[in-house]
């Protein structure tokens, strides 16, 4: 068989991109530190595996999980029943892998989860690429979107941590199947859409906006294209399968589905943690965040050209929608909110973004650590950036000039992202725009996940010749959780003494604090300690080390 390389060029580019991404991920995934919530997620996985084993009578797994739960549990964790509302989507299969493949080293369990999480993210990037291809019918633009999706520094860094980027990935699958199911009567797409919307709700309750949006969209479509019968049957199928999947994938609902589901809303509104956030060199409470909080974080921590293109693309689509809205009149020919299937996708993305953004603003959602809870906005940021590049041809009539400008932006965006990713490795999740001054970069919360602990233990403490080293912790980050990411021998050498600084040989400090550190001196370094080291990546202080100089 002869393969025409020219015809297969795009496939080869894609294959090359994915092979390279997988290769780089496999070579570097162990560089990332262990994050502070891994222990809880492992416990969550085994807890629910134990619960399911009990129900289905898998005694072997039940016994193993009971042992594992006792091993994992320590004083730093609240009872799992406090958190058992969290999704099992990733934690339970990971717990099952741990048992089936008999992985005994906890560090290996975590790294397995990291790489699996990245692969899910990479798979979602392909779905994003497919959406762009449906929308723009242009390989180059879609490929650029794909590269930006994967290489946005903060998102790439977080993609290994199976938290907020996992939701981004699942939401991306849901959006893809939403677009597919809207224009097709194929039941497969509707069922897959309901599956991924259920999984999205399972991960983040606010994803309940997806089904709401779907009803809204079907109503609007009905106005223009009629076909009530088919659309109602589509809606009914969607809802029944959505509820079915929601129930199946959420064991928390099994005992009492309706009241447990509504209890979640109570839990979220009453039990949300109120803490101080370090924001713009000041401490603010997370329950009184200003409306521009998310927007500011996005601007500060996204590559600047990408952000500019997003705004241009977003406002282009927004004003077009306003124009269409104003032009809707009873007897007008152009009587809808979008024209054609391509613009319909713009409409879906636009409404989703507005809906989610204002949901957070109107309900004053308490956020933690920057905008990580809404990292899924990155899907929209890149979509509208590409949208602007697609529409730029309307600005420049000269075809050659148009090509030249797009090629320049194309190259600049890709090169910049790749450069930023390399420069900040393995702390991409702490990336700040290079236009900011070092003072500004360090005026915001940094290493919330405690990823720097691995570096601190392996590169710093290991070099200390003493048999036992006592470490004080001048941060809200529970440093002891990072111990699971290092070798057993090194673990034995370390004793964490928390805020009992008088016992410490070294003090570990970063700028994460749950209280106003300018007023409360809980994390103030005693005078007999002096700074001997700081890890800086791209002028961002990841952590500082203080050493006892005189007792």
């Amino acid at each position, binding site marked *: 068989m002869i393969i025409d390389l020219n015809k297969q060029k795009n496939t080869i580019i894609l294959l090359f991109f994915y092979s390279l991404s997988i290769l780089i991920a496999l070579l570097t995934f162990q560089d990332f530190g262990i994050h502070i919530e891994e222990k809880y997620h492992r416990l969550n996985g085994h807890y629910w595996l134990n619960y399911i084993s009990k129900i289905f009578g898998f005694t072997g797994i039940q016994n193993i999980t009971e042992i594992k739960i006792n091993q994992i549990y320590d004083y730093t964790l609240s009872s799992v029943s406090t958190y058992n509302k969290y999704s099992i989507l990733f934690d339970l299969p990971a717990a099952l892998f741990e048992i089936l493949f008999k992985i005994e080293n906890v560090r290996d369990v975590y790294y397995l989860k990291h790489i699996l999480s990245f692969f899910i993210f990479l798979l979602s990037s392909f779905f994003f690429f497919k959406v762009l291809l449906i929308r723009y019918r242009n390989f180059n633009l879609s490929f650029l979107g794909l590269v930006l999706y994967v290489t946005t520094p903060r998102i790439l860094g977080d993609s290994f941590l199976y938290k907020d980027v996992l939701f981004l990935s699942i939401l991306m699958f849901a959006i893809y199947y939403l677009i597919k199911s809207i224009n097709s009567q194929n039941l497969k797409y509707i069922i897959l859409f309901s599956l991924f919307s259920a999984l999205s709700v399972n991960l983040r309750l606010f994803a309940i906006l997806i089904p709401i949006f779907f009803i809204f969209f079907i109503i609007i479509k009905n106005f223009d294209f009629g076909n009530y019968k088919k659309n109602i049957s589509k809606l009914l199928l969607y809802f029944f399968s959505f509820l079915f999947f929601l129930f199946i994938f959420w064991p928390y609902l099994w005992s009492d589905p309706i009241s447990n589901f509504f209890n979640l809303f109570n839990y979220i509104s009453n039990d949300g943690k109120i803490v101080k956030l370090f924001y713009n060199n000041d401490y603010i409470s997370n*329950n009184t965040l200003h409306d521009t909080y998310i927007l500011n974080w996005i601007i500060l921590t996204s590559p600047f050209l990408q952000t500019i293109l997003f705004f241009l693309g977003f406002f282009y689509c927004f004003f077009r929608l306003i124009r269409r809205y104003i032009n809707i009149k009873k007897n007008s020919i152009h*009587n809808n909110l979008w024209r054609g299937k391509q613009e319909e996708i713009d409409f879906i993305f636009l409404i989703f973004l507005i809906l989610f953004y204002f949901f957070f603003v109107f309900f004053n959602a308490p956020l933690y650590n920057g905008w990580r809870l809404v990292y899924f906005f990155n899907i929209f940021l890149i979509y509208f950036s590409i949208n602007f590049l697609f529409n730029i041809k309307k600005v420049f009539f000269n075809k050659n000039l148009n090509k030249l400008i797009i090629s320049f932006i194309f190259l600049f965006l890709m090169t910049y992202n790749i450069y930023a990713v390399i420069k900040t490795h393995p702390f991409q999740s702490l990336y700040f725009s290079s236009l900011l001054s070092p003072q500004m970069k360090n005026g915001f919360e940094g290493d919330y996940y405690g990823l720097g602990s691995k570096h601190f233990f392996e590169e710093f403490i290991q070099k200390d010749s003493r048999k036992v080293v006592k470490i004080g912790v001048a941060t809200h980050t529970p440093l002891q959780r990072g111990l699971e990411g290092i070798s057993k021998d090194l673990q034995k050498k370390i004793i964490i003494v928390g805020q009992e600084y008088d016992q410490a040989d070294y003090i570990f400090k970063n700028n994460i604090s749950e*209280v106003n550190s300018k*007023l409360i001196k809980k994390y103030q370094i005693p005078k007999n300690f002096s700074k001997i080291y700081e890890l800086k990546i791209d002028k961002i202080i990841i952590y500082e080390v203080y050493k006892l100089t005189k007792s």
Partner: protein
Amino acid sequence: MKIFFYKSILVFFLFLAGFHYSFNYVVKFTKNKVSNNFSKENIEVLKDKIKSEMKTGINKDVFISKEDAKIINGFLDKIITDLNQANK
């Protein structure tokens, strides 16, 4: 029906925005003021300030001037006398 639906959506959105930027805004502003002024941190700062002022007072040779001492003494005597009268 279609135009009515679109207008309803717009009115609903404007209502939410109006509610948020009026009532919600006032609530948030008040919450912020209260939490800033009566926060645990501020109370701690106040306690520290009182303690440090007390320490300064102890270390001074004369903390209360003669004139002030006379006034306070007289004031306390007056209170004691009034309280004793009430007990009779």
